[in-house]
């Protein structure tokens, strides 16, 4: 409970007041209970009952108001929410007890009313606090992302500065997928902008308003309420013939014991707790229902680059053609790649060990390559397919055979001529093999779709334990393949780079964008993994399954509890105060089970998520 909002303050006050008054009522009813055993003078009995009545009235009118209001609105909309039996029970108990007090005969249940209100409010306060805590975790992570801009200095070198330090006239480079740091004019380059934030168009589309399991819980709660009301009527009529004095206690016990809070609490609490735990591990869940789909996913599709392999890939060979110099090739490649977020770009820039040749009119073709103008000539750098199709470079199989086996070829071309071949190699991320193994153990099949050269992709697939893999997959091919898998009725989880795979991510049932700073803005995915550690992904899958299991367990437990306790209450073997205790115990169990999901399983020695985010945002 931090940063209490107005609504939360209001709730807190209602709860505190019900507690303060509840203590008084409990004290008085204690005297009444003892009195009914050992005898009590009628004048005291009457006095205690009247005092209880006066102390309970504010609890019913003020503290219990949220339940009564929500039950009333449910009734007005001809719905049966779970607050209807609650409100009915509270009012029946109060009116019945007040009648007993007035006539001076029969039992009073003021203590049951106040305990019930106090515990119910407490449970909702807890639920709210858990939800707020999860939201706060998310907010913290979002705020940890500083608004940075790449300022291009007069000498052409980029520097990373906070956006607030920019002044008019500065030149800023914006890479694909990055948010614009300031308003400005476009000097050079061609791209598309997502103006959703400005215009409100294309706002993220909610895929399904509520998770299926939450809808199920709502539906069950509604039918459950109807069944309870029916059962209560039957019990009331039956008891009327058996013993009219016991109608009220039986009806109260029934209404109180059946309060389906546990049913309604289980799902939101578990989802909130898990989202919080995952956020601590660097996985931001933007749609809580993603957890359910994640656990249900039958096929997990990986994009190779940056997810399973450690980025940036190593540059293993530079093979210039003709009389091109190695240094010149690297300088041109670095100049072109400066505007790219692709992990390969970093390897090339590092190898060039300089700013690279100044390139203008840089155009990025996501997942394929880049082209730009250097010294008045048009150069292109990208996959062999890209060089062949878009740059008209004569790329042949014989040519590509010259690179080291298993490495990925990158072609540098100039106006229909191959300038050089660059060979890059990926290394597996530590933990990638374990991630694949754990997914397979959970009964999911793993597929790798990569835009890289098939030989390189197959090598990685073998190293990962022989998973299915497909190389030379363009972004369009990935989308088609995922659609194909989804069409066969299986749910597909796609894990990939937020920029190049944006379309593939949104085609999948559930998706996680992995990666660096630019991905923070990615909204196509259901979740964003900031840490880009395979262990955290494995944790997410495992925890999603565990969450679903916890929810089902909680729902089952709530059902079992009702099956056992309802008959007891209907046959009159349970006083209302025991019912109130049982109801709260059932809710408390659900809350505890959900709280266990908050544990993020991180050892103390492991880095804080803040550190992971900083490293993700600020390239070394």
């Amino acid at each position, binding site marked *: *409970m*931090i*940063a*209490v909002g107005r609504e939360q*303050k209001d709730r*807190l*006050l209602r709860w*505190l*007041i019900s507690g*303060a*008054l509840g*203590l*008084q009522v409990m*004290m*008085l009813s204690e005297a009444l209970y003892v009195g009914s055993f050992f005898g009590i*003078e009628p004048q*005291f009995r009457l*006095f*205690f009952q009247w*005092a209880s009545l*006066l*102390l309970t009235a504010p609890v019913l009118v003020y503290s219990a108001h949220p339940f009564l209001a929500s039950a009333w609105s449910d009734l007005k909309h001809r719905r049966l929410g779970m607050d209807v039996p609650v409100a009915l029970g509270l009012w029946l108990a109060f009116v019945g007890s007040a009648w007993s007090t007035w006539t001076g005969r029969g039992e009073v249940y003021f203590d049951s009313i106040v305990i019930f209100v106090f515990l119910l409010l407490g449970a909702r306060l807890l639920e709210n606090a858990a939800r707020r805590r999860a939201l706060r975790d998310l907010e913290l992570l979002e705020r940890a992302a500083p608004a940075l801009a790449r300022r291009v200095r007069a000498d052409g070198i980029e520097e990373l500065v906070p956006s607030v330090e920019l002044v008019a006239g500065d030149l800023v480079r914006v890479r694909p997928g990055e948010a614009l740091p300031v308003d400005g004019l476009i000097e050079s380059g061609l791209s598309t902008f997502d103006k959703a934030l400005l215009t409100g168009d294309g706002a993220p589309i909610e895929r399904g308003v509520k998770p299926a399991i939450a809808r199920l819980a709502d539906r069950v709660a509604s039918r459950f309420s109807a069944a309870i009301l029916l059962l209560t009527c039957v019990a009331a009529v039956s008891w009327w013939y058996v013993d009219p004095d016991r109608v009220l206690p039986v009806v109260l016990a029934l209404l109180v014991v059946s309060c389906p809070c546990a049913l309604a609490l289980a799902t939101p609490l578990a989802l909130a707790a898990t989202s919080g735990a995952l956020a601590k591990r660097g996985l931001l869940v933007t749609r809580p229902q993603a957890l359910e789909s994640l656990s249900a996913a039958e096929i997990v599709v990986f994009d190779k680059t940056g997810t399973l392999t450690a980025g940036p890939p190593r540059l293993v060979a530079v093979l210039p053609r003709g009389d091109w110099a190695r240094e010149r090739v690297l300088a041109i490649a670095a100049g072109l790649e400066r505007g790219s977020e692709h992990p390969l770009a970093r390897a090339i820039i590092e190898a060039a060990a300089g700013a690279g040749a100044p390139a203008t009119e840089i155009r990025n073709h996501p997942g394929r390559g880049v082209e730009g103008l250097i010294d008045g000539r048009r150069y292109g750098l990208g996959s062999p397919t890209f060089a062949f199709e878009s740059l008209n470079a004569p790329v042949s199989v014989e040519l590509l055979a010259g690179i080291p086996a298993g490495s990925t070829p990158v072609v540098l071309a100039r106006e229909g001529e191959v300038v050089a071949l660059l060979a890059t190699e990926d290394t597996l991320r530590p933990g990638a093999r374990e991630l694949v193994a754990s997914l397979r153990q959970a009964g999911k099949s793993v597929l790798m779709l990569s835009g890289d050269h098939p030989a390189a992709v197959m090598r990685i697939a073998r190293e990962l334990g022989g998973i299915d893999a497909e190389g030379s997959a363009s972004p369009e091919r990935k989308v088609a393949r995922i659609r194909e898998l989804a069409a066969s009725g299986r749910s597909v989880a796609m894990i990939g780079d937020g920029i190049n795979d944006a379309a593939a991510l949104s085609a999948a049932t559930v998706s996680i964008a992995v990666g660096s700073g630019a991905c923070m803005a990615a909204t196509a995915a259901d979740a964003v993994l900031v840490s880009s550690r395979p262990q955290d992904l494995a944790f997410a899958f495992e925890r999603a399954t565990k969450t679903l299991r916890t929810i089902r367990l909680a729902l089952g437990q709530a059902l079992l509890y009702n099956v056992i306790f309802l008959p007891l209450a209907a046959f009159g073997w349970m006083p209302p105060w025991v019912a109130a205790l049982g109801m709260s115990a059932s809710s408390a169990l659900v809350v505890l089970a959900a709280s266990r999901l908050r544990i993020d399983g991180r050892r103390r020695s492991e880095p804080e998520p803040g550190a992971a985010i900083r490293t993700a945002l600020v390239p070394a």
Partner: protein
Amino acid sequence: MEIVFLLVPLAALLVGVVILALIWAVKSGQFDDLEGPAHRILMDDDADSEAARRPGPPVT
């Protein structure tokens, strides 16, 4: 035992005071941040340390 006729209203009165205190506590923000104040002892109070570093009036 007639004393309870006085004691119970007295207790109720006391509860009234408690409730007023609770209302004040919630309204004045006593429950707004239940974690922050515990860490406050670890924070540097910048304004104060600044003042301490500034040269004070000459000691006579």
